[in-house]
């Protein structure tokens, strides 16, 4: 029997104190409507909580949304913890209010792609489908 039941599993997470969740919820729904299984952590998650959830849920993707300017602090912590726990086969993407000049640095830290305002959720779906690592 082959991997017949495989579904893309995504953890949509809101790190930090940011309460902007409209985008995260829209993205979560769009991913669901694209046939993925989406686990939403809710607001105010620490990087440790996000990584623990990602591992227990064995997700293919961690998708984080930050609109409060704390991305340079929080995103890299999540990718670092994932690496430390041997979960670097998880695709990590981010989105929100992220200044252009911050994006290269985030990519270097292991954020595969950053989606900013105006992105169509279709592009996000496509990116995830084409880039999941397993």
């Amino acid at each position, binding site marked *: 029997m082959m991997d017949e039941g495989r579904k893309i599993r995504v953890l949509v997470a809101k790190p930090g104190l940011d309460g902007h969740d409209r985008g995260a919820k829209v993205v979560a729904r769009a991913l669901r409507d694209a046939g993925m299984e989406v686990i939403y952590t809710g607001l105010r998650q620490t990087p440790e909580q996000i990584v*623990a959830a990602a591992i227990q849920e064995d997700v293919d993707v961690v998708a984080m949304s930050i609109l409060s300017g704390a991305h340079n602090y929080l995103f890299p912590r999540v990718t670092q913890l994932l690496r430390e726990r041997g979960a670097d086969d998880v695709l990590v993407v981010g989105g929100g209010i992220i200044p252009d000049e911050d994006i290269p640095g985030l990519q270097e830290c292991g954020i595969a792609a950053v989606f900013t305002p105006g992105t169509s959720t279709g592009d996000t779906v496509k990116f995830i489908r084409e880039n999941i690592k397993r």
Partner: protein
Amino acid sequence: MDWQEIVSRALSREVRAVSRLISIVEDRRAGFEDVYAAIYPRTGRAHVIGITGPPGSGKSTLVDKIAAEYRSRGKTVGIVAVDPTSPFTGGALLGDRLRMQRHSLDNGVFIRSMGTRGHLGGLSRATSGVVDVLDAAGYDYVVIETVGVGQSEVEIASLADTVALVQVPGLGDDIQVIKAGVMEIGDVFVVNKKDRPGVERVVAEIRMSLDLAGKYSGHHGPATAMAAATATATATAAIAANAWHPPILQTMAESGEGVAEVCEACDAHMRCLVTDNALVERRFRRARSETMKIASDLIWRGLADDARTLGAAEGLAWKVARREIDPYAAGRDLRELVVS
């Protein structure tokens, strides 16, 4: 990691391995039957508790608090939370974890969310396997939160050692649910949201229908049983049923009030199952239902995978469509072909 390594790490409760193993079982990835064979001998130690009840009744909140309670007693808890998969897109929003997320940093709690993936009955087809993984990994309790949609919930009865049925005041159709046969599966009744008006009425309703049920069937006998049980098994169940009187407990899951009592009741139920030798019967029931399901699955797969049967099915279907034979006759013919 190859699968042997995953299994051995999972058996020593290494979180990442447990989680990967669950995926292998849930997705039926290549080789999952070998994996299953390797872990199965280690199962049967956990106390499997099913939490069922209508959406919004507070199941997730309750599971969160139950986990906290067992943790405070030094026990470990695996949680399987099932949410519905959309039949249209195949996707799912798995929202239960949100209420339990505070345990995520506790190594003694493992939470896994699942979609029903097209399966009816309040669980996913793979739930039983996932429970086995958590059991084999050594969690003392495995708590399952079902989808919670009424009628189809009875499936949990054949999976769990103890079923806690959650009801709340003010849902309007709660009485409906109680009368619909779901009642019979409850080993422990939880009336949650006791801070709301109408609790007494719900308690009274439950008591009344328990009394009614007690008159003829005892509290066992899940409607899902696929085949007639052996005479001895039925007898054992009857004894057990008489010994255990499902308690009706009031909780306020939000604050944790009454949750310790729920845990106590679940433990008491387990003790009762053990002393009455009824645990054997429960486990037998689960094994039987699982075996039948897998067999029928395999047969179905045999049908779907095999070019010969597919061809035959097509031919038969045309005959049915042309009204040359009836669908039952076609079904019987096809079965002959598969079984032979």
